């Protein structure tokens, strides 16, 4: 055998003898020590939940904070869990036995960690458990931070709720793409709104303690401790007083409709943006829900199939928008050169083309109108004509350029819907039928297949205000870590710009300005001290002649000279735009511009 081979074998033998020696040391000499420790092996790891990042309004108002809450956990003391303990616990915690057993089963591969049975239990339950400590071996009470929503049902659709459910793979990947975030099954994680999209920033990193527990499961000695790292605080772009008044205005409008025995009413949405940045100042969906009692109410909330309070109607639902769409048709007509800026078209109350007769709202005869007057008075006949002149393909093109038919780009809340742009391709794909020219007329006034989200409308009116710039709407002003260091600052992001001639923008804006003056469809705003450009919409919710009330819409920006805000209001089955959506918008504008509310006066205004 080679010399070097012999050396190798000698070394190997030496190493193995050393390993054996170490084994002998542990198993023979230290045997008693280790045997004792194994016998009462009660070294457990208690997790210290990191406080979740807090959420603030744009002027540092607290919106979501944390408070201490009690969590009841169960720890394996070495011989499993007795049916007796489980039965007693089920009784005390008002849980099913099977539910407890399932939680135990889900953690079979990490039995040294306590199993969290119920979070945020009442003081009374804690006292009851403490009294019966000896009958409940292995039951632990831990203090954990619990979410505290300062204003209960305020901005619920923006904030979103937390839950324990299963997380889809795409979301887990999205989260884990950030920071050093790690999702574990059973974690309480954001399931909607900002809590969901910003989960990796909000969560923080849990700490833990190595403790020795006694025979009843109480920690008697602490060995190692790792402090948790709190989550990052989020400062939103939300203007808290404005958000309040948006929510209030929508709720009141809906309540008024219900009082008027409108059986279809109940849902509404509104969003307020800064047209020069895309900052969202307010975003509300009605009905909302109370985040503090969310988990108790969950079954009811989810069971409400009619009003669906959990759905964020600003982004998750698209509806026909009616006349608020007319500026798209106007822009298409002016840009394509099929109408000149001052050309008059006669409105005889109705128009007949391709064997279809279509009329103005309530058969009104407007007479000769130019494009500004047509917007001001929302003349359907004028826009039917414009639709036919530009054709469906051009119309669909400009509709898409205004951000319709695809998500606007909000990344702080998931679930934005695309909506539908009426087009030849869409009809072919869905109905497998060719496009009929008569349908172009409906498409030109925001009916037919057209369907848009409220956020898309707000972005659209912003683009009119700022000259065609599509900003990404955003909700995060800045992110600050627990040390107070700013980690991220939200900045305006331009996605693209829709180019149009200055005269085109001028004509469209002029139409909207005059709409909010006496004689316009939003004349309720005529006495408003700040100049407003707006457009009403009354969108047919069902076939013509149906008794189902139309959707009420209004889009606007103000002040006209230097736009600070752009807004879109949608009241489902709220009737005409002028009667329901305009007063809501007025309340919002009053709050924003600090103006005394108007005298409540009932008058009939047509859309």
């Amino acid at each position, binding site marked *: *055998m*080679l010399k*070097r*081979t012999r050396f*190798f*074998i000698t070394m*190997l*033998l030496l*190493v*193995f003898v050393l*390993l*054996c020696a*170490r*084994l*002998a040391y*542990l*198993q*023979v000499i*230290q*045997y008693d*020590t*280790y*045997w004792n*420790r*194994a*016998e009462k*092996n009660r*070294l457990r*790891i208690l997790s210290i939940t990191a406080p979740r990042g807090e959420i603030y309004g744009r002027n540092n108002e607290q919106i979501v904070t944390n408070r201490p809450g009690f969590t009841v956990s169960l720890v*394996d003391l*070495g011989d499993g869990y007795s049916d007796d303990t489980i039965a007693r616990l089920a009784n005390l915690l008002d849980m099913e036995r099977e539910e407890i057993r399932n939680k135990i*089963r889900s953690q*079979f*591969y*990490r*039995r*040294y960690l306590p199993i969290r049975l119920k979070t945020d239990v009442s003081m009374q339950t804690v006292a009851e458990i403490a009294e019966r400590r000896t009958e409940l071996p292995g039951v632990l009470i831990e203090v954990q931070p619990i979410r505290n929503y300062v204003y209960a049902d305020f901005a619920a659709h923006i904030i979103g709720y937390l839950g324990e459910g299963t997380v889809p793979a795409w979301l887990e990947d999205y989260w884990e793409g950030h920071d*050093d975030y*790690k999702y574990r099954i059973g974690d309480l994680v954001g399931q909607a709104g900002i809590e969901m999209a910003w989960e990796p920033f909000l969560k923080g990193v849990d700490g*833990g303690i*190595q403790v020795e527990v006694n025979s009843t499961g109480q920690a008697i000695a602490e*060995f*190692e*401790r*790792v402090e948790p790292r709190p989550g990052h605080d989020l400062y939103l772009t939300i203007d808290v007083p404005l958000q309040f008044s948006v929510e209030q205005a929508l709720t009141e409008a809906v309540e008024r409709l219900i009082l008027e025995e409108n059986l279809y009413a109940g849902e509404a949405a509104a969003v307020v943006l800064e047209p020069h940045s895309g900052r969202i100042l307010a975003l509300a969906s009605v009905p909302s829900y109370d985040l503090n009692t969310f988990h108790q109410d969950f079954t009811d909330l989810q069971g409400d199939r009619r009003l669906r309070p959990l759905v964020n109607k600003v982004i998750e639902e698209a509806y026909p928008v009616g006349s608020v769409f007319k500026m798209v048709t106007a822009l298409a007509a002016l840009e394509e050169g099929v109408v000149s800026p001052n050309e008059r078209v006669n409105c005889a109350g109705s128009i007949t083309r391709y064997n279809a007769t279509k009329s103005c709202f309530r058969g009104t005869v407007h007479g000769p109108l130019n494009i500004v007057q047509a917007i001001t008075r929302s003349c359907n006949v004028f826009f039917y004509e414009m639709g036919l002149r530009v054709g469906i393909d051009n119309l669909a093109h400009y509709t898409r350029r205004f951000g319709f038919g695809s998500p606007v780009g909000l990344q702080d809340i998931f679930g934005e819907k695309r909506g539908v742009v009426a087009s030849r391709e869409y009809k072919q794909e869905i109905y497998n039928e060719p496009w009929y020219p008569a349908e172009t007329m409906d498409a030109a006034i925001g009916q037919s297949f057209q369907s848009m989200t409220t956020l898309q409308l707000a972005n659209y009116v912003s683009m009119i205000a700022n000259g065609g710039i599509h900003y990404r709407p955003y909700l995060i002003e800045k992110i600050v870590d627990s040390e107070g260091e700013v980690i991220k600052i939200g900045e305006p992001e331009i996605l693209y710009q829709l180019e149009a001639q200055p005269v085109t923008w001028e004509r469209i804006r002029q139409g909207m300005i005059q709409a909010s003056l006496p004689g316009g469809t939003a004349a309720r705003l005529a006495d408003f001290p700040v100049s407003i450009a707006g457009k009403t919409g009354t969108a047919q919710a069902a076939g013509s002649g149906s008794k189902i009330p139309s959707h009420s819409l209004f889009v606007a920006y103000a002040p006209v000279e230097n736009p600070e805000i752009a807004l879109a209001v949608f009241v489902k089955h709220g009737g005409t735009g002028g009667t329901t959506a305009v007063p809501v918008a007025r309340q919002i504008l009053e709050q924003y511009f600090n103006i005394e509310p108007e005298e409540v006066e009932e008058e009939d205004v047509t859309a």
Partner: protein
Amino acid sequence: MFDRRLLKNFDFLLLLITLAICCYGLIVLSSATQGLSSADPLLHVRKQLTWIGVGLAMLLVVISVDYINFYRWSWYFYMINLVLLGLVLYIGKDVDGTSRWIELRFFDFQPSELAKLIVIITLARLLVDCKERMTGLFSAWPFYLHILPPIGLIFMQPDLGTALVFIVIFFGMLYMAGVPLRNLAIYAAAGIALLPILWSRLMDYQKMRLLVFLNPEMDPLGYGYQLMQSMIAIGSGGIMGKGLYEGTQARLQFLPEQHTDFIFSVLGEELGFFGGAFLLALYFLLIYRILKIGSYSKDSFGALLCTGVATMFSFQILVNIGMTISVMPVTGLPLPFMSYGGSSMLLNMLSIGVVLNVGMRRHKIQF
């Protein structure tokens, strides 16, 4: 036809020791995986048995090809190795921030396991081809150049434990090939001197991983905890052990990786000092046999193959068992033929196949 003379030189004892360790492993595995799968308590044992079977089949394939062909195909192996290691960085399955596995239909393939054997083969050829470069201090550069790409790719996964195995195999083979000890000491010293540069190039999370690797106390809720539980398990086993399936530590699942990396802790608890020493004795016999075959091989290529395999096994055994009794850092290296896992079982069987192959063809065939 299979040559009769080949059978005469077939080392049945080596195969027997291997199978003995496998059986031992299966018994401990059946205890370590109790309750891990409620539907089929023997799921892991059955799977492991399948890997042993497949491994034996592959071993037969390996011994039927004269190992001199491995010498010829060495460069193909080398290229395949780099491609696989590169591929795993891109399409690898992400587990806790590392990508080590390529998902196949039947199992998760771990290219770094196969890479060990390939590096042994390709390095053996290089050492044979460049014998004259062995003694000079600087002329040995091709050996370094050869080993650097695979180690670099494994380091990027990042799999520090396996990267370390490569370094040890490298030095083991250089030593057995006849590189002067003084040179080896200088290379090692130079390598250590370069560490700070490497360190500065690491990402923060990689540094953290390394620090925890060297000092598990930094992670008292993770590795530190595992280590303490492992020592309690082994220490409480005593001389005779608590008896198979009687380990309380094991039953409580205190040891998170008890069927893979920490299987020795289960063995120590249930079968005691005798059980552990018996396993070490089996391992010693195994490596002794491998080295013996190496020393009788007809050429230095065969001898180097055996050396490489012996070094690989020795180091993994030392590090794995050392980890469970807190004399080595926690690395995640499997215990050969004992730990649960397809890739490592197949690789170990293939390695034994290579050694048997060298042994079978130790005489030049006479006409």
